[in-house]
């Protein structure tokens, strides 16, 4: 079993690094950690980086998860190879680009690029956002899935993810106490469906709602509240059409042993209990193929 500790970074390709930086700092509110040749490192919490844009194809996306140590990494590689996943062992230099000690990369069954990293760096200097956005940290990702049931099995049986709740056949999965770290979303092909950052208060969500409106950033869903995790949310579009989310108040699963995933019907109120409707953002399509 591959023991994921937490999601630790996202790597995104972009054709326009300057536009990505303008959005990440001026809209999202992240802090620039480092600009190196063709790459931009951004911070959202006490980690040295949680988001990296690099010059390249926007289709090049990877999500990094932290594992315990190098031994865990070797075990994970062996497990994945046994299951016929092609495992790419990162070099020391490539690990350096991820501000981690070591890493491996592979594709999940849908084809999303996943990386497992050992000892991703923290920074002694506290995170200070570029704007007063209230971000407290990078928290979870929405991952496209061409077959949610198959991918749920991968994340929960090959890895240590546990299903917290389901909407239709869409699982929201946790790897620690936080309600979800990975949300699968039915889609025709691989890709990141959204990147979530937590903010400190409902006020932060609402302030951003009005600020983003003024800045004409497309708001695609919210402000709203998920009945599953209890989080108040706002989804909006960033560079290359990628959706970002602010949320606050996500539940923690208090009793790991006794928690039983709840089943929510596949309908709008399962995604927002307030009545917000997605605009320009597809709800995950729950129809079985």
């Amino acid at each position: 079993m591959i023991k994921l500790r937490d999601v630790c970074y996202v790597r995104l390709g972009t054709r326009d690094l300057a536009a990505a930086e303008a959005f990440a700092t001026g809209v999202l509110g992240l802090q620039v950690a480092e600009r190196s040749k063709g790459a931009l490192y951004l911070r959202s919490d006490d980690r040295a980086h949680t988001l990296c844009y690099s010059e390249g194809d926007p289709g090049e996306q990877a999500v990094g998860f932290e594992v315990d140590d190098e031994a865990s990494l070797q075990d994970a590689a062996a497990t994945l190879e046994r299951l016929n996943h092609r495992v790419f062992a990162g070099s020391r230099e490539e690990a350096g680009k991820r501000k981690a000690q070591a890493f491996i990369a592979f594709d999940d069954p849908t084809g999303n690029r996943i990386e497992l990293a050992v000892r991703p760096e923290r920074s002694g200097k506290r995170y200070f956002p570029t704007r007063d956005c209230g971000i407290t940290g990078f928290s979870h990702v929405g991952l496209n899935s061409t077959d949610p049931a198959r991918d749920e099995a991968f994340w929960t049986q090959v890895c240590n993810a546990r299903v917290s709740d389901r909407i239709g056949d869409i699982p929201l999965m946790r790897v620690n106490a936080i309600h979800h770290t990975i949300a699968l979303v039915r889609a025709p092909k691989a890709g990141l469906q959204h990147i979530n950052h937590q903010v400190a208060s409902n006020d932060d969500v609402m302030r951003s709602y009005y600020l983003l409106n003024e800045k004409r950033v497309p708001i695609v869903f919210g402000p709203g509240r998920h009945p599953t995790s209890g989080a108040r949310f706002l989804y909006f579009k960033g560079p290359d059409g990628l959706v970002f989310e602010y949320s606050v108040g996500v539940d923690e699963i208090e009793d790991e042993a006794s928690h039983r995933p709840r089943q929510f019907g596949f309908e709008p109120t399962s995604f927002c209990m307030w009545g917000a409707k997605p605009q320009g953002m597809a709800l995950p399509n729950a129809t079985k193929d």
Partner: protein
Amino acid sequence: MSADRATLVALSHVWVAARDPLTCARFAEDIVGLQRSEETADPIALRADDRSRALVFSRGGESRLAVEAWDDAALDDIQSRLSEAGFPARRASADECRARRIQSGLLARDATGNAIEIVTRPERSGRRFFGARDAGLKGVANAGLRSTDVAGDLRFWRSLGAEVSDSVGEIAYLAIDDAHHRIALYPSTSKGPLYLAFEVATLDDLMRANYFLAERQIKIVQGPGRQPASEQVFLHFQGPEGLNYTYVTGMAKRDHSRPPRQFPSVAESLCAWGSRADGAPELSPANQGAEP
């Protein structure tokens, strides 16, 4: 009245002179979520908590705001203070009391000319409040009044025992009990009620209302927003005949340990989140150009 008792105890109700009371009442029921409390055609009374009347619609006449005082001694007290301050007031007759469902009352007028009534023992219902829709209503919270003479109206309200808790430009928030404010005076070119605010139980209720109203194409005048002075989250929307309703939640308690604070008349003094008013000039800052 003993000295340690507050003169005013609560905001009681708003009586609205309507051209079409039935249409107004239907909106208050179906949209706002109030409950009809009497089966009369005119006036039509609605409740928002265990009191029989929060909002009354009646054809013609004049709109008026009623606040509740402790007892008759308080009414006497207020009457003499109003008289000293130059505001004549008279006791309501027995018929007027019956029509208002109150025990006794003092009929007065502020400097602007708004009819203000100070009432005792407004009727309560033994049956608990059950709203027409799941709005999460907890009762009447506060009211906004248009004022053409804020200094004069402040003199009036101080005679009643109200105190300014904070100001935004010339807008004055007036406290009469433990809440940050129950009355707010807004500089205006006309008189009359600007809004009547109902408390909802949770932020969820207020946000659900936001989408409920939007789906029904009801004009949102401002919000969802958060008032910096009172900390209350608000949503102003417009009903028939231009009457504004407000849902609020989370108002701060009155802080006796500090003097009233002054906020400048800019947008961010009126909403901490960045919402702007549209459709009620009184709710917009005097300094329109100022950016947060």
